[in-house]
């Protein structure tokens, strides 16, 4: 292994370790709230309301919403980890520590993204364990489940990074989650099958990328989906690559970081 590659791996390990240490240190703000929120969803929607709804696509309502809720946790946590951490380093100016060092933009981006993915997956594991108090989960296709979860976390980690680069204040890092991510997630088939919608709204829903992610993940867990799994995974892979390239371009330009 040449010296430069070894140095980059040490730098990557440093960033990832720092990112994981950050969200573990403040676990009451990062890991506990999604656990509480999801338990409330399980109790209110899954147990109380779900019993009156009955079955959906051949599963109890609780079984049906669990994959969507896990995916919702992954999306919001992967995104918010990167956006708050990277914006925080800009705000404290500690981003300068990274910029003056010889770390490549690829390592910086990968390090922050892996931090976001790690938090997304950590919350997914917590939510999955909690869901087992309410229903029995049997994974239909482990490969699809893992690929979709990792790709989704990656895409939203990159999304959080872009938001952080453009953000000028703390308001800017909450606008996208509040006004874009949350509505798209709720309308992304977490709580319902799009077959319940009128034809025109079914077509409109297909333009929502989160619908494809939630359904692909639901296929991995339950084996049912409203959309084509191959198309969904292909779309996610292309989106991840394009977002990666865009993030690298932002880092190289120094936008929001260098004068």
């Amino acid at each position, binding site marked *: 292994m040449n*010296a*430069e590659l*070894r*140095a*980059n*791996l*040490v*730098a990557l*390990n*440093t*960033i990832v*370790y*720092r990112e994981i240490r950050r969200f573990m240190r403040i676990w009451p703000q990062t890991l506990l709230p999604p656990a509480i929120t999801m338990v409330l969803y399980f109790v209110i929607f899954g147990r109380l309301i779900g019993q009156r709804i009955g079955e959906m696509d051949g599963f109890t309502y609780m079984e049906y919403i669990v994959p969507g809720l896990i995916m919702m946790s992954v999306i919001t946590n992967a995104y918010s980890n990167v956006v708050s951490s990277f914006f*925080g*380093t800009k705000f*404290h*100016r*500690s981003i*300068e*520590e*990274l*910029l*003056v*060092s*010889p*770390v*490549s933009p690829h390592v910086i981006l990968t390090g922050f993204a892996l931090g976001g993915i790690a938090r997304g997956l950590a919350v997914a594991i917590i939510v999955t364990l909690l869901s087992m108090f309410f229903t029995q989960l049997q994974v239909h296709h482990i490969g699809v489940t893992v690929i979709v979860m990792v790709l989704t976390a990656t895409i939203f980690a990159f999304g959080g990074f872009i938001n952080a680069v453009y953000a000028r204040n703390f308001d800017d890092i909450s606008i996208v989650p509040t006004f874009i991510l949350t509505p798209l997630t709720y309308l992304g088939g977490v709580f319902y099958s799009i077959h319940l919608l009128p034809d025109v709204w079914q077509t409109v829903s297909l333009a929502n990328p989160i619908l494809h992610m939630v359904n692909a993940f639901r296929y991995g867990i339950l084996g049912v989906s409203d959309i084509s799994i191959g198309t969904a995974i292909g779309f996610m892979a292309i989106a991840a690559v394009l977002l990666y390239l865009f993030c690298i371009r932002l880092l190289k330009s*120094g936008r929001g970081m*260098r*004068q």
Partner: protein
Amino acid sequence: MNPALSIRNLTKIYGNGFQALKGIDLDVAEGDFFALLGPNGAGKSTTIGILSTLVNKSGGTVQVFGNDLDRDPAALKRCLGVVPQEFNFNQFEKAFDILVTQAGYYGIPARIAKARAEQYLNQLGLWDKRDVPSRMLSGGMKRRLMIARALIHQPRLLILDEPTAGVDIELRRSMWSFLTDLNRQGITIILTTHYLEEAEQLCRNIGIIDHGQIVKNTSMRELLKQLHVETFLLDLKESQLVPPELGAYPARLVDHHTLEVQVEKSQGVTELFRLLALQGIEVLSLRNKTNRLEELFVSLVENNLAKEAK
């Protein structure tokens, strides 16, 4: 041998059209202790920002030990340690973690990074504070922490942007001693400061920048030679009601016990003391009214201002 720093025709025009640097040329030799001085807004911090890649240059070239900023920025960064003017570390991180993390960015394995962090925290008197979050440190401790952080990858060129600003005199002197030792070990140091006695005491060579241009780049000794007139304050033993007659030495009483005298370089002070002795005036002590470098600095900046006005 490559100079430690070589800057050619460096320009910076900010987005609002302000031209902060107007094509500066600067060389700093390896092993030098160099002062980069200038009034506020002269372009010092912009120059340092470009060297440390925090500011994108508009034109020109920068090389550190032969490593070009455009061609091989990573190699340039490995040679360079920067202590910025403003605190720029994560306020929630512990002092020790800040150093180990910074070392990691330079590809230094954790085992070596921890040993170096211990070494520099000890040398800078911060070892007892290693587990304290940086926001809890005093201003002087934060400055020392930034110096330790800049040294963690053992750079060959260390740039300090006003490292002793707001630091008490005792601590400032201990930092001077630390920096002098570093320089003796072969580390090239570039220092910007508003304390001109600090620059005079520490630095061998000096560049003065004003309005984005280098107006002086010479050795400290040569620069001080250009000082033609020095103003001294003499503490007198006996009270005086009128200034004594001192011939070619212009003099005035600041108060009944303090005499201000202007002495030209060619005159020296021997004749002055002879004249005072003849009049029975005893002098308890003698000191410069202002720092010698400060007098030169003010005159150079004022001359440049007059040129700019024309």
